[in-house]
């Protein structure tokens, strides 16, 4: 009944969808198995994509040839470029999305991708022979075979949902969990542990009084995620969000439910994300704060459902209801469903290699929350990389991985496999050493060639990127050659609080001044606009960033160079760490377990100190 596949992907969330699409687009025969064909690409938590550091990841996925950027662009109801007042490394695109449209768009794109077959079933066993995966066994009793398998189980592995004192098995509200896989993997020698995450209540928007909240509009210009020309909504069509705040009164009501809280009673064993804490966590940990911010986000174009971002909770429903009813604008709120916490199994990701393949079982790949991460974007990019490498493994091709200086995706995977995580891992810009290099505006320039060379990014993408690169260089050359006379520009400079010119200056030099942009300069100097002849604002912006932040870009490149020294020092696979008596037992065990490929990687393993690396270096050196 089933083909023998190149790649089976288990789970059709953000990770699974990207994995299936990538492997299929590169030429693998792919089977995507999901428990429910109706819940492909669910936004289980907030109806938004991107944000700080996450927006950069979505653009990287897009540059490599993944789908998340396109899907987000097609289903957005609002776009904002966050952090525009900071340096360009911090600019972060974010969309509010129509939850249903997002899922439908994903399904549509997958259905239109040749090479993907679908099967609705539960996987509850793996077929492993001599240390290599050969396929999966399903709840309906089918054995399906493939060269590579990607597990993207999300929160479904032994998932337990908690609301107050109630608890029930499930992978998502109203959906059953998955059992069997964890037990089998543990019997194969894998370590597993528990994590917890949560989600806020969903509210009937018709019951809210928005006049008591602040409005948050979308941007006047919609950049989007994808580097492809995509038909996006017009700025004026955007939906707005709202901001409101909790109060001391709300906190007091919340506290009345603490004794029935699963967290406080110790029923939840898994650790939750410190960065996305539940409202009860916030109230306890930031006891001195008398209010917390809440974002009130619409769930789509055609629904009244509202997502209360910042109010994630697993307190009893009536406490959730009472507390939220005391928030300005929510006095008469009606619940669609309460918030809840979910506990699930994950496999500490130090058990993986750079390709997200497990060290214990060949050709078995993990991506997404099963690796201890949180967030759609984090999951999607792992799915993409696992899909790429599952395909390449199936076809006997060299593995593909990204460096910390190449992509946030590289930072994420390097962190996961070397440091592991004991709380849901979320990406931050501060995790990246080279924030100014890993910008959202240049992900195509960084990654599209790689994506194309492995057969994932289309010819169209490559052509667009090369054209952009050429135009940017051309524009920079023109700016370097164009001389500006004081008389042409002094009025404009004065208007922008910039000191007047006394002699002729190159346009490129003026651009280094704060507050002076290409666009504004070209408006002030018509001759420059004629000379530039560049209608593509993205090209203009790219040239401007490269010129304005050149000093910083070069500084980071210098640090990259230093890092690359250690990255180029390969540690032989057979290196015997047992003879390193000089280093701590912990470091020795970690090194022996993780088997770093390079001294650079060794230096990033948690528990391995700089002095340990020096000692390792002495042993390897000479």
């Amino acid at each position, binding site marked *: 009944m089933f083909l023998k596949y190149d790649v089976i992907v288990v789970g059709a969330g953000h990770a699974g969808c990207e994995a299936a699409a990538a492997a299929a687009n590169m030429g693998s025969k792919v089977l995507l198995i999901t428990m429910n064909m109706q819940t492909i690409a669910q936004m289980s938590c907030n109806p938004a994509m991107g*944000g*700080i550091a996450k927006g950069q990841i979505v653009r990287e996925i897009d540059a490599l040839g993944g789908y998340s950027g396109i899907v987000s662009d097609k289903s957005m109801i609002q776009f904002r470029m*966050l*952090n525009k*007042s*900071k*340096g360009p*490394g*911090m600019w972060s695109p974010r969309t509010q999305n129509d939850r249903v449209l997002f899922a439908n768009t994903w399904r549509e794109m997958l259905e239109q991708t040749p090479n993907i077959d679908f099967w609705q079933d539960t996987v509850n066993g793996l077929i492993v022979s001599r240390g290599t995966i050969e396929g999966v066994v399903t709840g309906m009793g089918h054995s399906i075979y493939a060269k590579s398998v990607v597990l993207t189980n999300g929160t479904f592995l032994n998932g337990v949902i908690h609301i107050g004192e109630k608890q029930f098995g499930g992978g998502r509200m109203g959906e059953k969990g998955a059992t069997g896989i964890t037990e089998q993997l543990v019997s194969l020698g894998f370590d597993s542990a528990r994590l917890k995450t949560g989600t806020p209540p969903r509210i009937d928007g018709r019951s809210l009084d928005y006049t008591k909240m602040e409005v948050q509009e979308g941007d006047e210009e919609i950049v989007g995620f994808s580097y492809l020309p995509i038909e996006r909504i017009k700025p004026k069509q955007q939906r707005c969000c709202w901001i409101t*705040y909790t109060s001391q009164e709300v906190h007091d009501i919340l506290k009345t439910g603490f004794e029935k809280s699963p967290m406080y009673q110790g029923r939840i064993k898994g650790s939750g994300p*410190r*960065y996305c804490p539940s409202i009860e966590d916030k109230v306890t*940990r*930031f006891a*001195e704060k008398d*209010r917390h*911010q809440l974002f009130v986000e619409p769930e789509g174009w055609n629904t009244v459902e509202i997502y209360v971002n910042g109010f994630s909770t697993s307190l009893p429903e009536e406490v959730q209801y009472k507390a939220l009813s005391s928030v300005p604008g929510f006095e008469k709120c009606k619940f669609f469903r309460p918030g809840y916490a979910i506990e699930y199994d994950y496999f500490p990701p130090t058990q993986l290699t750079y390709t997200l393949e497990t060290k214990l079982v060949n050709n078995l790949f993990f991506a997404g929350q099963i690796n201890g991460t949180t967030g759609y974007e984090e999951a999607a990019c792992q799915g993409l990389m696992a899909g790429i490498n599952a395909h390449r493994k199936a076809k006997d091709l060299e593995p593909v991985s990204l460096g910390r200086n190449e992509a946030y995706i590289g930072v994420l995977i390097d*962190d996961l496999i070397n*440091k592991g995580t004991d709380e849901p891992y979320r990406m*931050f*810009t*501060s*995790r*990246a*050493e080279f*924030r*100014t290099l890993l910008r959202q505006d240049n992900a195509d320039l960084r990654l599209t060639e790689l994506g194309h060379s492995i057969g994932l990014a289309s010819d169209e993408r490559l052509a667009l990127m090369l054209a952009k690169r050429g135009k940017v260089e051309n524009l920079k050359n023109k700016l370097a050659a164009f001389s500006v006379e004081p008389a042409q520009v002094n009025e404009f400079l004065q208007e922008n609080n910039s000191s007047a010119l006394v002699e002729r200056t190159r346009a490129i030099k003026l651009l280094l001044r*704060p507050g002076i942009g290409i666009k504004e300069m070209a408006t002030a100097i018509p001759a420059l606009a004629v000379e530039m002849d560049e209608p593509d604002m993205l090209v203009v912006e790219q040239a401007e960033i490269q010129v304005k*932040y050149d000093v*910083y870009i070069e*500084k*980071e490149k210098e*640090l990259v160079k*230093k*890092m690359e*020294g*250690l990255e*180029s*020092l*390969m*540690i*032989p696979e057979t290196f015997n760490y047992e003879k390193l008596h*000089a*280093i*701590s037992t912990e470091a020795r065990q970690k090194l022996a377990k993780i088997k770093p490929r390079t*001294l*650079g990687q060794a*230096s*990033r393993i948690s528990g391995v100190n*700089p*002095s340990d*690396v*020096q*000692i390792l*270096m*002495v*042993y*390897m*050196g*000479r």
Partner: protein
Amino acid sequence: MPFPGPILLFPAYTDACLHLQLVQSPDMYTINDTIVAPATPPGEGALGIIRLSGTDAVDIVAGIFSGKPLKEQKSHTAHFGKIKDGTRVIDEVVVTLFCAPHSYTGENIVEISCHGSQYVLQQVTSLCLSRGARLAKPGEFTLRAFLKGKMDLAQAEAVADLIASHSGAAHRAAINNLRGGFSARLKAMREELIKFSALIELELDFSEEDVTFADRPQLYSLVADLTDTTTALLQSFKLGNIVKNGVSVAIIGKPNTGKSTLLNTLLDEERAIVSDIAGTTRDTIEETLNIDGILFRLIDTAGIRDHSIDIIENIGMERSKTAMEQADIVVYLFDVMTSDPQQVSQQKATFEANGMQYIMAGNKVDAAGILQAKQKFGDDVVYISAKNKDNIHKLKDLLYQKVIAGGVNPEDTLVTNARHYGALQDVLASLQDVKAGMDNNLPGDLVTLDIRRSLHYLGDITGEVTTEDKLDYIFSKFCIGK
């Protein structure tokens, strides 16, 4: 209110500027064997010490030692006995035991104090070699201490300095650094900076959230403090260098002003101390002078001081010029009876114009003549009589003051190492970039970029960041047996 999340800093990564050839079993750094070397310098001395380090150190010595059974003795004990080659007695010795891990290298260490004959030391060393020890390579004892985690890189470097210290101040500086004074200072700076940048990072990554952070002025003053500390450390390099290598002092002046006498007087007074040092120094035996623990190297511009005046007249100017250029401090000596005040002040102006450190010394002044001399040559001259040894202490005070005039206390942490100096300059430059960034109201991500660079360079010194270069450099400075 600080956001009580973890400090999210990029992982400390190490760097390497050169590419290594990988060898599976490098013979230099196998540390399973026992090494041996004389620990005292070559030459005749009352005592000579041979040191062994390694698992078999006690066994090896027990096999050639007649006295108490060494293997049954406790750590940190000394034992009298004979070293024998078969039945032939080589020397009567005292053997001191240090058992792992409570020793310098963290391994078993045995020190054999012999009589200081080169023949004896050589014989005992050969015996140890024949019993399975291996001759230690330069710096290998300290390398082992480093490999065993007994010290960090800066401390290992301090050992090299300590061994080479020729004066009290050099000794103090080295000891301070060995105890981790320098490392501790830098680590404290690093921690402050990490805290600082973590706050900005939080501000950046949580800019959408309603969280508050430490106020900017506070962060501003932290950067100012760190800049001051770095500047002081950099300034201390000059003193550190001086402390390590001595201060060169050129005594110049016209013929017959008494330079030679002054030199002799200065040296005479210090003869006892000088000869103490002379025993342990090599190239600066003669004209060194120790003032309050700081070593001065007197450059003898007269050089041929007991010879013909004609020669001095012929080549004196040339020599003086060279000496002046090389010296840290110039003492200009003139005869108060015969010198022209205008010429003296012209000379002074020349020193000033060249930005030199100088002392004007009027010679041949007796107690009664000082007032008169002052009227003639002014107050900023030290009046001495080299012949009668009058006011020589004032001249010495002045020399000492010149050295520590930078407001640097020699008791403080001193930067004595050129590698540290270079890295500190990078630290300072990036800290200045941080401040400039804040002055210009640059966004936090760009400011933290420079903070990250400062952290990187600071780590360069303490070994948070390392290069094979550095390890090579540090351990090659040791002499064998150290």
